[in-house]
């Protein structure tokens, strides 16, 4: 039982990261029906930016621990800066790569998204080199044990931050004016603009928020694993996209559910079947669910087309 709970914790921690990235996919898809393949790379870029910001603050990967409020302050500063920068990059990507193609055939923005993904990977590859790079794990990492199950601060951090972000996002979408504008634009772009909603600004905000969440995911993934690599976004992006589809693309609660589910399925497969079968099991479940429930677990939320 203890081992099951332990794997559940592992799964939730990994799933939280998938969920955070999946939110970006699902928000963008919900509003412009574009699978933003560059999103996974924005996530990795988030990790890279965190490393750069930490270096500016004088924190290197030497294993130094900054305890107390100083550590918390640095973490907060880094995560906020990385989220803002990633958000801005997301907006720039939308402005220069996708906006003009919004009414083009769907294949065009899709190919463009793949192009942007390569572009970001190329930039990161030339920036830090094509190998694993260390992420400074500067926060102390006490372990809390109860009943044979142990959870350390990093895992706790991953879970708390991802849940906090999702709750905030849910609140934002349903209780603010901008959130309302997003939902309106997702439902019917033309009608929304007739109602006086600036659709371009709304879409830009969607990209900003999605990318900022990816930046946060980049920080917690770096803290959790202690390393990152320029190609990580590809795998993580693929899994997160799967999570979004699993939960019902365009559906924010669905993305979270899908993310946690995939993380947990991965951990359980590694425990009870074999580590090398995790991808097979994850994607088999995806196929099954799409066959039985084509609109995902919680249903798609897409603009209605006449």
């Amino acid at each position: 039982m203890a081992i099951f709970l332990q794997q559940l914790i592992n799964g939730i921690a990994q799933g939280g990261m998938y969920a955070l990235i999946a939110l970006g996919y699902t928000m963008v898809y919900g509003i412009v029906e574009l699978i933003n393949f560059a999103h996974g790379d924005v996530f990795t870029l988030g990790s890279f930016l965190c490393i750069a910001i930490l270096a500016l603050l004088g924190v290197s990967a030497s294993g130094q621990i900054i305890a107390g409020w100083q550590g918390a302050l640095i973490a907060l500063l880094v995560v906020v800066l990385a989220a803002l920068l990633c958000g801005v990059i997301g907006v720039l990507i939308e402005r220069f790569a996708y906006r003009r193609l919004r009414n083009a055939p769907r294949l065009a923005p899709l190919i463009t998204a793949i192009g942007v993904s390569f572009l970001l990977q190329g930039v990161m590859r030339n920036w830090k080199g094509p190998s694993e790079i260390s992420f400074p794990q500067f926060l102390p990492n006490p372990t809390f044990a109860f009943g044979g199950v142990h959870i350390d601060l990093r895992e706790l951090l991953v879970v708390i931050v991802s849940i906090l972000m999702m709750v905030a996002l849910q609140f934002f979408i349903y209780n603010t004016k901008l959130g309302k504008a997003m939902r309106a634009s997702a439902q019917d772009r033309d009608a929304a603009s007739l109602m006086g909603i600036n659709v371009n600004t709304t879409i830009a905000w969607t990209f900003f928020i999605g990318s900022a969440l990816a930046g946060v995911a980049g920080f917690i993934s770096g803290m959790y694993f202690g390393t990152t690599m320029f190609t990580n976004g590809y795998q993580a992006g693929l899994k997160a996209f799967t999570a979004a589809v699993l939960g019902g693309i365009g559906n924010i609660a669905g993305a979270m559910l899908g993310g946690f589910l995939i993380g947990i399925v991965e951990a359980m497969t590694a425990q009870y079947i074999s580590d090398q079968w995790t991808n097979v099991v994850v994607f088999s479940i995806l196929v099954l669910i799409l066959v039985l429930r084509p609109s995902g677990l919680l249903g798609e939320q897409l603009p209605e087309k006449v």
Partner: protein
Amino acid sequence: MHRRYIIALTLALIAAGCSQQSSQTSSSTSTSASSAATSAAATSGTTSNAAGGTVIKIGVDLPVSGADASIGVPTQYGAQLAVKQANEKHLVPGFTFEADVLDDAVNGVHDPAQGAKNIQSFGADPAVLGVVGPFNSNVARAEIPLSNSLQLALISPSNTNPTLTKGPDAVAMRKDHPDQIAYFRVCTTDDIQGPAGAAYEYTKLHVKNAYVVDDNETYGKGVADQWEGAFKKLGGTSLGHDHITKGQQDFHALLTRIANTHPDIVFFGGNSSTGGGLIRKQMPDAGLGSVIYAGADGISDNQFLQDAGSTADNVYVTVASVNAAKLPAAAQFLKDYQAEYNQPVGPYSANAYTAAMVMIRAIGEAVKANGGKAPTREQVLAQLRMTKDFPSVIGTFSFDANGDTTNRIISIYEAVKGKWVFVTQQNFAGSP
């Protein structure tokens, strides 16, 4: 106007998409260009006396970028030093050697398809009479059939998978010229390396319960199986054997499963570029921080130390080669290497130096047999197959009928405070 803008943008993005590809090739060519420059600089000092004899190229195919660079680059330096010294000492009068260096890593990880491409481009250059490389066994799998069909000598400094030279797989790989082997290696194989490591860890570190993990590659799975078999034969218990997948980042679930079996050693078969350091880094998270971690030559590099960081302690590895510092014959080589590159040798620098030297000797013999004229690739191969009692910086050796070295030495290293420290070495010359 609008449409034109879209087209321009799409083209720009496609160009950007391609830039990743081109940056790879350009980076690999830039390494080859810079190393060609060093070798050119090396030769230019001697051409005045050599009066610019005919140029013979020796191809060097190793992974020299990304996670493999920390072990690949010092290996490449070994080969380049041999070429430089051959020119300075006029080992083959009337001829000047040149190292033609290519990178077989793609996105920072050794890549069999890239290796095969490199052999093809060496094959297309008539000046290339032999190749030093590759580093990784799965790359060798892709290259051996090509080198066999081109009859272009290929000498690996570090491939340790036994099936490359022995058994049905090896025969299948040289089907174009079954009797004319073109692939040789100067290090010993995993059927010796795996058991040697297992014996050390079982008897000297007193570990009894092991969990084995490998990266599912030719080399990684091979050495892990050999290690596990030997460990069990000694009386140890294998609690489980798992394989990880390429590009995997999260090992927490796997490590939790491992921790639940309470091993006192975790063995990893694979490379630093395929997850060796990341697993060690995440072990403390699953409560495995104080468990011994062992591996083979694939993780005996600086990239491992960097990835594992503060967890790079209590780690033991084997290297399928002699520690050059222990051999009097290597003293001059170590001094020259330090002087040339201003850094200590890597685990396979001396092997690459030896591989290049044995190639140069074979070319020299072939020139002699050919009446002072440039030999063909077949003539060089014929000389290589006859290599007997070649005195080298890693000891005197011959090539057996399979192209394997008769020099069977395994050295063992331990990671102590972010450095690899030599522990011991053993000679298995008598073993089958």
